[in-house]
């Protein structure tokens, strides 16, 4: 018999992400399944954006989620939200693979959506929140001057250092840094309410 404070699978959908991570520490694979359902679409999109190929993106996301499973006890809610933690794990692995591959040219391509039977996505209110946050973020990214958006995307999605961005674009290093900082500051200001809600 399960302890009273251990949610069964049927109630997992009502839990916050951080509560699911706590269940991962107890080796609850149904909690991993729930986290998968909530975040896999976003993680796959990120990995495909970085790597350019759906096959490698799948592998990276699987690796990242196994890392989440194996290292759940290291998650600290004081440091980041669960979604940010997972995104940065997946990004780190994707960038690592990208560097190993030594791809020079920009590999980012629009990910082709595959409406497969196994598709899962966040549900209900959580899905709406994700959708709205995504919309606001896209809108704010679109408002950024193109040169600021470019340096931010190169740093985040392509794992380029600021010096590499400067060399690739021919822009002085100091300008790259300034543009990056300005982009971060504008987004932080514009999206402050969304970001505060994650703290």
């Amino acid at each position, binding site marked *: 018999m399960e302890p009273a404070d251990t949610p069964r699978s049927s109630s997992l959908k009502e839990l916050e992400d951080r509560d699911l991570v706590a269940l991962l520490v107890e080796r609850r694979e149904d909690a991993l399944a729930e986290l998968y359902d909530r975040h*896999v679409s*976003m993680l796959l999109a990120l990995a495909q954006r970085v790597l350019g190929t759906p096959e490698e993106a799948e592998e990276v996301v699987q690796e990242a*989620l196994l890392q989440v499973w194996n290292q759940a006890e290291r998650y600290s809610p004081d440091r980041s939200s669960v979604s940010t933690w997972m995104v940065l794990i997946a*990004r780190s692995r994707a960038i690592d693979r990208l560097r*190993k591959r030594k791809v020079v040219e920009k590999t980012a391509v629009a*990910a082709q959506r*595959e409406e497969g039977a196994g598709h899962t996505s966040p549900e209900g209110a959580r899905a709406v929140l994700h959708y709205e946050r*995504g919309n606001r973020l896209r809108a704010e990214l679109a408002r950024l001057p193109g040169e600021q958006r470019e340096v931010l995307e190169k740093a985040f999605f392509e794992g380029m250092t600021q010096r590499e961005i400067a060399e690739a674009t021919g822009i002085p290093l100091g300008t790259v840094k300034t543009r990056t900082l300005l982009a971060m500051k504008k987004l932080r200001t514009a999206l402050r309410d969304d970001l505060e809600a994650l703290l």
Partner: protein
Amino acid sequence: MTDLRAVGQEDLIVELLGQLEGEERESIDALAALDPAERERLLRLDAELLGSLALALEPAAPRPGAREELLAAAVTGRQATVAPFVARGGTASPRAGWSLPLAATLAALGLGLAGLFFGQLQSEKRTVAQLEAQLAQARVSSGEVAAMREDMREAKRQLALVGTRGVEVCTLRPREAADAAQEEGPWGVLYVAPDHQHWYLAVRGLEPSPDGHAYQLWFMAEGRAVSGGTFSVEAGGPVELSSESMPDGTSAVMVTLEREDGPAEPNGPEILFGDGASAIRVL
């Protein structure tokens, strides 16, 4: 305070905020002058901002069955720590990078190395036989069977690589021991397929890595160290890694002890080193 580093989060923020010069310095000074709580809050906001960038992308649907594979892998305890080495789905094409630095010494077949090679070959054959026997008698869950089948396929791939004509074999030893023919201490054998892309590394004798640390494999290519991924070691346990690709121009490999998240460049102590010049080709 190391959680952020564990996922590269703080590194990225430091990268974004920490290399400013001139007038930009003022903003950093202002940041540093904030009380620690407020500075922490700003860093947290920036971390969340970076983490949110993925939301701006069009969601992608996973492949059917991927969820079940993940859960099976989690339940059967297969570790993700060696996953970076596995590059299924990639297309390997013949490249000359590895062979060029080795050309001068390929003919020098050392008896000791040959012994290691044939020992490994026998070991792989035994592993395949054991796995096949276990699989035939298995009365276990489908997840365990799937994991066992994958282990067997991997062992067969490694066996095929080790037994391939023209495979190049390179030993890894602590650098100070490389010339001393010491019997003690860690060692490894790297097998590189004739396509100079597929490789298999067997390591023995490593101590378990300390908490917060992991061993990391590096390919030395064109003056740079390219990470081959991190791996953990259980007490007394063997380590076997493989992948379908290695960087062009790889002339040496090494294993270092690093932070668990695997830095982009080697910072920790070197544990093992193998120079392409010491490799042999099995004819």
